[in-house]
């Protein structure tokens, strides 16, 4: 009886220990990339930045610095109206917005660029023409950056079209 009890206790202890070992191996790391790429618009020539203003009929040049720990993927730029104040920005400071209005011919710009393979750092530049006939007002400028593995960082800026 006693030996049976002892054996049982031992078996139980064994299972507890194994389970504990099992449960504690989860900190194991495969060498996989778990880092997000970075959008840097702090440089002096970066454009646009929060609250930038652009003029209709002119060309602007988008400039930003992208970095990633392994390899950059692609980026997309998206300019759409914010006349209804539906969206806000990722930045800390807010810009002064115009009153809410209905869109008539709002500007819409969507473009995507695949970053050449093997890049950890990339200076992105992109010329964008602001058509002369679009509605002026508050717009939203979105930058979406991915790395090769599919990690994505978003930056949303508020700009004004004059």
């Amino acid at each position, binding site marked *: 009886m006693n030996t049976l009890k002892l054996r049982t206790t031992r078996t139980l202890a064994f299972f507890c220990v194994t389970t504990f070992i099992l449960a504690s191996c*989860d900190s194991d790391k495969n060498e996989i990339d778990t880092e997000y790429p970075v959008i840097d618009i702090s440089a002096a020539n970066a454009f646009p930045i929060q609250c930038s203003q652009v003029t209709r009929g002119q060309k602007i040049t988008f400039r930003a610095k992208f970095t990633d720990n392994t390899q950059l993927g692609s980026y997309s730029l998206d300019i759409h109206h914010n006349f209804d104040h539906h969206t806000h920005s990722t930045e800390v400071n807010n810009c002064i917005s115009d009153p809410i209005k209905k869109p008539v011919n709002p500007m819409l710009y969507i473009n995507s660029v695949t970053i050449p393979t093997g890049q950890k750092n990339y200076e992105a530049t992109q010329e964008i023409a602001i058509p002369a006939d679009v509605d002026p007002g508050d717009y939203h400028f979105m930058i979406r950056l991915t790395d090769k593995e599919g990690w994505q960082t978003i930056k949303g800026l508020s700009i004004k079209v004059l």
Partner: protein
Amino acid sequence: MHKNKSNRLRTFCLLLFCLAIVTKVSAQMVRISGSIFSNGLKPLEGAIVTLHPSNKITTTDKAGHFLFNQIPTDSKSITVRYSGYLLHEVKLPLNKNAIVFPAIVLTPEIKELQEVIIKDSYEARRKKEESLTIETVNSSFIQRNLGGSLMQSLQRIPGVKTISIGSGGSKPLIRGLSFNQVIVVENGIKHEGQQWGADHGLEIDQYAVNRVEIIKGPSSFIYGSDAIGGAVNIKPIPLPAKNVLGGSVDLTGKSNNEQFGGSVNLFGRTEKWFFDSRLTAMDYGDYRVPTDTVHVYNYAVPLYKNHLRNTAGRELDWHISTGYSTEKLKSVVYVSNIYSKSGFFANAHGLEPRNVDTALHDKSSRDILMPFQEVTHIKISNTTSFRLGSHQLKTQLGFQKNFRREYSHYVNHGYMPPVYPAAMYAPQDLERQYDKEVFSVAIKDEFSIRNHQFTVGVNGEQQQNKISGWSFLIPAFKQVNAGLFVYDKMQINDLWLLHGAVRMDYGRIEMQQYTDWFPSEITENDQTSAEYLQRSSALTRTFGSFNWSAGVNYNPGKWSFKANLGTSFRMPIAKELASNGVNYHYFRFEKGDPNLGAERSYQLDLGMDWKSNKWSVQLSPFFNYFPNYIYLNPTSQHDIYYGAGNQVFEYEQSKVMRYGAELQMRYQFTPQVSGEILAEYLYSEQLSGSKKGYTLPFSPPASVLFGLNYTPEIKNLKDTYFSLDYRYNAAQNQIVPPEKKTASSNVFNLAFGTKVIAGQQDFILSMQVQNLFNTKYLNHTSFYRLIELPEASRNIILSLKIPFLMHK
């Protein structure tokens, strides 16, 4: 890295090896016989008599007579089960070679009582007779652990998690698999909603659930496609006792989301005819989280008074079942309607994180504004079982309609016009509509040949899916499935049980083409033209599959061991084959692959159980391999047309390996105090494809729950309990884009319950304090995890159940 991995595998193999430990029991034989009678002293034919602890089973003949020849000497008792009667247990006298019992008279059951009695015997017996890993819980477990939805109430079971959507909706996550990889069966019919959507809850009324059986592993051989990861089987409610009219009232209140709700049940039965009905209503406000700012991706969103803006909801359900029951024939018709309306967190829906009218939203915490979902699920089914010679047959016919609408402000993207056209086929705020109708039929035959217990079944299902709304994600489609299976359970002797099953399946899916309602600008050779783009083309795919499963149970004395090896499969769904649109919850563009093959899985399940007077230990490890797991892969690309610059996610197939285990330990310190440890561990890894080395999405972290339970005897009270649960969730560092690492967390839950007896009337009272210390923590498998939303703040749940009998 490889060293680490092989270490872990070695540990795992070691663990499996331990299951080979075997104990021997010597066995001399005696015989037992007796007769079973109803309380009207009529002999009961077909009563199930089980011998314990060997679990040998026999049934009574026409005269109510049973006989066990040659039983093991360690036999301690027999139990008698008969539908409509309480479980009856008789202890066996010691040291006799032949036992003839006097007449055993069964007591009719009253529904409420039955649950408590079922708990110990039924659950234990099922576990010993199935080679798959099964957990069974009843409605008192649900009342004790009541969460916002059925699956949330079941989360305490190791290996069972949920993907929760706010406070009122959730879907099952069994060992890390969910969506269309886990099926839910209610009253024998496969529940068909829009399981593919992470934001879609399960349309089940948890008050109407009496008993749930959870199969933690592939069960395609019983249920067909989709049961590749497991099954949640909600059993039909037991029939009321004869000549009884009764019911119950449930009332529930929750502090966190100021929920109040309840359910009224009324049932009755004459000799042969019976009915059961239920009405459930619930209303809740925005739920609260222990934070004042949420970071939706990089957008900071302030919360008003910790309320998660626009997560209020309501639910209204009704059920009626009626039927006829004799010893030879039982036929039941079930009709139910589940309606729910609930809001989505307003700042995290659309093409990008949104600014909302906070003045409008924060005015009331109970209103449901845009965006919100509204779902109606209707079920009509009939289950008829009867005896034909030595065959026990069961037929099931079912019809379901799942009607889901998701409302959101119109946001033009791609080349959609900035102002919504007046003459559109869908209202301006109807973002998406899914309308699914399913007809299903199944026939099952159970019979025994010598020590083989066979189950043969065929089932067929036909579904139609229509879509509407101004946005597009998946096309309309029709689907047909049919399956045929044979299952043999073979009792070798008192200790050994073998299982074998084969199944053949056929499935066909016909997807319709979908063309945009607006023209897009296409530039070719510097020529720009406007065209109505086709998002998805007409496509028909057929799939066939052959699956098998083999298992063994070995139940020596206090131990029981089980092993099961089998294959499972899943047909790709319309979303995986043909989606081509924006998922507004995750700000991403999802693309299907029309060439995907059917998913296949191989799984080894093991189980070890040990029970003594004070201890009980259960360990259930598993190993699983998918040669072609269907996975939604985040690419580095963006879609600049319809996707408005959002990141593209594409369906792909990759090799996947998964393994893990659950451990349950209970110890009875004194007759009043018991403790338990419930632990779970899961590891998944993609072995090929573009995310080789990564895990699968929604992988639950390892966790341990320590529970302490005190059941004092108090005068005028019955079944009193106090319990404290402490759950430790390990950090989840194994992630795949776009997930984030989740830190470890410590959560405490407190529960109390009792039955107050006042005269003839019982009041069953239960109280819970969830998240006792108002801890701010993240749940890795929550729908809102990606936007860094902490789990709900402290929540006090009070519920009262008042059973009543009007006529007996």
